């Protein structure tokens, strides 16, 4: 395991070196394939003087993060109670199933023009778009989590004369939590996907905007830095969420099924 990691790392380093030499020897054009050395310089430039208009990389990261957090928290905060309600009441589930299936299929970014007409190109538009995407990913997982609680557990709890409220709090919710966490992770992925599209319009702050702005200034190196940072940000948060899950939900070992 460790040796294969070392080999993997070496492969990456060799690839980067090859890339560098390919550009230096004139085989690849530096504008189309900015070499690793240029990307390194661009990182320094972004950290020290900033781009565009002196916005430093930390501002971009912070703003993107803040937009995602707002939309994400809004979505989770709405999806959990609504999902618990729909998942518990079978009739409600049947009534809403086609609606939820359809609204989930609506491409979040196709709402962009409509939301712009409603709320302009400001912060609210971006936050709402992220919230929309995250909401449906979370909602369907909360509903599924509650709906597909192992009936054996419910029956066992009934045998022990558990009251309805205790049943819900002590049996249904803990059993549904792994699935809810899977939904939370999916929703986060959606959020990162939507943010880039949402930041393409009406802003010069945020990683999505940085990536797009850099193109208009023919700075492909900065575009790549922006991509690396958004990838890194997504990766860090997703890993953090998985880690949180192993700590908070030690009983969720059958999750490999859900994780697919």
């Amino acid at each position, binding site marked *: 395991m460790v040796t294969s990691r070392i080999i993997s790392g070496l*492969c990456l380093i060799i690839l980067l070196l090859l890339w560098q030499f390919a550009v230096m020897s004139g085989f690849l054009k530096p504008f189309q394939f900015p070499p690793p050395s240029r990307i390194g310089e661009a990182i320094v430039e972004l950290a020290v003087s900033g781009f565009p208009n002196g916005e430093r990389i930390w501002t971009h990261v912070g703003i993107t993060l803040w937009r995602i957090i707002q939309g994400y928290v809004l979505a989770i905060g709405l999806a959990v109670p609504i999902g618990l309600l729909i998942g518990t009441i079978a009739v409600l589930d049947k*009534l809403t199933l086609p*609606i939820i299936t359809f609204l989930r299929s609506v*491409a979040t970014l196709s709402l962009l023009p409509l939301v712009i007409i409603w709320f302009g190109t400001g912060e609210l538009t971006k936050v709402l778009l992220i919230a929309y995407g995250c909401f449906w990913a979370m909602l369907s997982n909360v509903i599924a989590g509650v709906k597909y609680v192992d009936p054996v557990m419910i029956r066992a709890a009934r045998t022990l004369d558990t009251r309805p409220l205790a049943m819900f709090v002590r049996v249904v919710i803990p059993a549904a939590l792994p699935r809810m966490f899977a939904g939370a992770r999916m929703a986060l992925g959606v959020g990162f996907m939507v943010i880039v599209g949402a930041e393409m319009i009406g802003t010069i702050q945020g990683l999505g905007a940085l*990536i797009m702005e*850099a193109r208009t200034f023919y700075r492909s190196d900065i*575009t790549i830095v922006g*991509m690396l940072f958004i990838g890194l940000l997504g990766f860090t948060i997703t890993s953090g969420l998985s880690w949180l899950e192993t700590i908070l939900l030690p009983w969720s070992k059958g999750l490999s099924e859900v994780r697919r």
Partner: protein
Amino acid sequence: MTTSVRWQDAVLGAAGTGGLFLLWELASRSGLVSTNVFPAPTTAIIGTLQTVPLADILGHVWTSLGRIFWGFALGAVLGTVIGIASGWYRALGVLTRPLIELLRPIPPLAWIPLAIIWFGLGEPSKVFVIFLGAFFPIVTSAYRGMIGIDPALLRVGQTMGLRGPMLLIRVAVPAAMPDLATGIRIGWGLSFGVLVAAELIAADRGMGFMIMNARQLGDVDVIVFGIILIGAINLITDYAIGAVIRRRIGRWHAI
């Protein structure tokens, strides 16, 4: 599940959907919500069909479907081949995994500027971004499916005299199919989400262009119509893919 229960479910679902549409329609007609801001579904559909020729709408749909087809097909084929190959041949896995793991967290839309620099403003750049949307989930799930194969299956295959490529094709690939199928569905959904954004930028045709253009003209009817259209096509195609998968793979694996 008995037929009567299924019927009951369908009726309840239809009732819920109908109720929602009725509310939306009423809110719009009674003037509670302005039609210039959020038209009722009927207003949007009729308004669009009156202002935009049907041939134009079909043209946009056709263009978008063409892009998504090529992008997705490319992503599905390359993702499947690379995923399965790197799961089967360990040396290849050591080479490809770090690169894929490094690039995977980057949202497909973030590639748009590079796609334009590499491929220009034409069709290939859009197809490339859609390709990325499909490729990463599919390659990852194909790889996971391969390394998650029950070793007993492979050993049984070997006992039966299967070696090398035959073992791969007859035992390993079918065993990895359920995972691959999940990846394909996720990839399709993602390609669809990416499609619209790819068309919002520098396109002169396609459904994404249609709604973005309608924004500039202030035509809310077309926007709402377009959103419903894109959602409906996504839903129908996803359902079709799901049905094919269930029919093919459902035989040896319950999904």
